[in-house]
């Protein structure tokens, strides 16, 4: 029974990892491509960690697997957000026009001007 769970987790995890890699190669622009390793690869690694913990079955391995999963789930969105914001500010083009662009600098007179007090 545990063997069946383990092999199912291996198949599902490898499927999501493969989807992430194909998405990195095939999606049209950077803002699409950053989604693939952030979400699909994290889910795939969650299943692979589950499979490894089921295969070994020691308490130490379960603890380290849960720790690694928590760490990945906490850091992958942060890294993707920082990278995406840096790409937006660097002017990386997108494939289609962005409909809702909340990072766009405003042009009105209430706009806080960028401070020129660079010492």
């Amino acid at each position: 029974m545990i063997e069946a769970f383990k092999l199912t987790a291996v198949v599902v995890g490898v499927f999501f990892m493969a989807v992430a890699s194909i998405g990195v190669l095939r999606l049209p622009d950077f803002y699409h491509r950053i989604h693939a390793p952030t979400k699909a690869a994290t889910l795939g690694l969650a299943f692979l960690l589950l499979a490894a913990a089921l295969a070994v079955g020691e308490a130490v391995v379960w603890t380290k697997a849960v720790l690694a999963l928590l760490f990945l789930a906490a850091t992958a969105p942060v890294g993707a957000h920082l990278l995406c914001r840096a790409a937006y500010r660097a002017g990386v083009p997108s494939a289609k026009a962005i409909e809702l662009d909340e990072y766009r600098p405003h042009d009105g007179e209430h706009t806080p001007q960028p401070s020129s007090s660079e010492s």
Partner: protein
Amino acid sequence: METYLIVVAQGVLGIGIVLCGIRAVRGPSAFDRVMAFDCIALNVVGVVLLDSIVQRTGAYMDMVLVVALLGFLGTISFAAYLEGSLVD
């Protein structure tokens, strides 16, 4: 049976590493390259986990944690460097 399936799974992850490598070579911007190397690190972690299933040892879990930590640190530092907030 199980060993064959895991070897095939490792082959699939290896193909994924090759696909991310193509994106890292072709990528139009430096951000694509950083993202592709991050994805390569996650695929390497997957291969190591599958190897630990074959050998039934928990000795590789530390390496999983370390590679995940280093991948995150690399992504963060490259994002800060490319954004220009490290220059000051």
